[in-house]
């Protein structure tokens, strides 16, 4: 059984490398039972999305409506 500390480490690593199937299973079992780590997992996803939004790799289209400020990436 993984501890919360071990689980958070693997949750983070899952963003940087593929986890082995045993690791994935152990993490899943733990997060099913642990609300703290479940929330941690979701928080990492939000951070991930935030970073992607800041990266903004896609160039804006040349013919974008300049007055449209909604849905900015």
């Amino acid at each position, binding site marked *: 059984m993984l*501890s*919360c*500390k*071990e689980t*958070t*480490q693997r949750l*983070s*690593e899952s*963003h*940087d*490398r593929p986890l082995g199937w045993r690791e994935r299973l152990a993490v899943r079992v733990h997060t099913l039972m*642990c*609300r*703290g*780590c479940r*929330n*941690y997992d*979701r*928080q*990492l*996803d*939000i*951070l*991930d*999305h*935030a*970073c992607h*939004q*800041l*990266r*903004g*790799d896609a*160039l*804006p289209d*040349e*013919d*974008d*409506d*300049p*007055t*449209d*400020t909604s849905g*900015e*990436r």
Partner: protein
Amino acid sequence: MTATDSLSETPADMDYARLRRDMLRFAVLQLRDQAAAEDAVQEALAGALAKGATFGGRSRYKTWVFSILRHKIADTLRERARHPTQQLTPDERDDHPLEYALESQFTERGHWRREARPRDWGDPEEVLASEQFWQLFEACLDHLPEQTARVFMMREFVGLETAEICRELELKRNNCWVILHRARGRLRLCLEENWLRDGEASAC
């Protein structure tokens, strides 16, 4: 946000001095070399001005210029990996206080202490639409220790794989993962402590 009225014009109220300063700080952190960073920033700004485009406002323009800068930085780092010439100054370990802060969230057995247990931030879309979140996010990024910030930004903003980061910084891969884990841990802790304190999220 100011609308532009001709092609190849940047938003009229763009503060270039500030933009250049932000870009330089970001580039110095990644490249750890003032001259190389200034070159990258110059090229990125020149490239942005040359390309031009119609923009709706400052923030999109800034995102776009930073995107060009990131690609320049990534190119420089990859080139450096192919032809290592410079001896860059090694970094001191700067994350001992950080390590302690993160460790103290857990009991001896490695479980969350009750007061440290991560809470529910609510609907991700609402979070990412919150102005307060973005201000805090940037502030929390600024507070990361230098080496931690460097590795995190190489991964999440420059988009390098851990193997490339490790090669560039001469770190073992395992060490990279630990640093990234601490960066994420520190960021979420900083956000949770400062943002959710206003009682927006439900306590779990």
